[in-house]
């Protein structure tokens, strides 16, 4: 499977600041790009997602920016809060053959300090 590269591995942000996590992909056949939030010991929860025909999607404090030509996308968390402290995973989905297989980045551990 094609890789999805995620950076940084860890991120420390002060409360009220902006958290930015970046991902890059190789396979241009990917057609859906979700972000998941995972708290320790829990399963990942779908946070926000974008299709490649859209350059930006915003839901509350969370925004995805998508650059199709550069094959990159990023998650911005505005007004970061201590409750946002979690591991974030980007992913890319290939819907060919109806299987909808997700390829994940390795995750970014976000710590928001008061």
């Amino acid at each position: 499977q094609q890789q999805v590269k995620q950076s940084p591995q860890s991120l420390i942000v002060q409360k009220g600041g902006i958290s930015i996590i970046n991902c890059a992909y190789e396979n241009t056949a990917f057609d859906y790009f979700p972000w998941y939030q995972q708290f320790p010991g829990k399963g990942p929860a779908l946070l926000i997602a974008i299709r490649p025909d859209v350059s930006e999607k915003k839901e509350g404090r969370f925004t995805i920016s998508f650059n199709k030509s550069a094959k990159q996308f990023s998650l911005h968390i505005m007004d970061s809060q201590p409750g946002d402290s979690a591991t974030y995973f980007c992913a890319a989905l290939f819907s060919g053959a109806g299987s909808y297989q997700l390829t994940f980045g390795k995750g970014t551990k976000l710590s928001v300090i008061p």
Partner: protein
Amino acid sequence: SQTIHQWPATLVQPVGSPLSLECTVEGTSNPNLYWYRQAAGRGLQLLFYSVGIGQISSEVPQNLSASRPQDRQFILSSKKLLLSDSGFYLCAWSLQGYEQYFGPGTRLTVT
């Protein structure tokens, strides 16, 4: 609303013992089902997916197998566990769409 269950939540098994992890989904019909493994500090690796009863596709050759005996039931098995099988096992479902929803996971430790 849809709910996904996994059990057991935690499991400690000796090397060479068998394994059976179960996942069930409520509130939907004919979902796509997925098994992922998450090693410590790493991303999620897709192990198996199923688009229907009895239909299993394997992504990674390994010591594990999967079965789907009922529409909303997905089972992960092994005849003989290896130390390298330790990890956090996650089941997910999707309704033939793009959104995948994960269960609470099973923490497996092979000793």
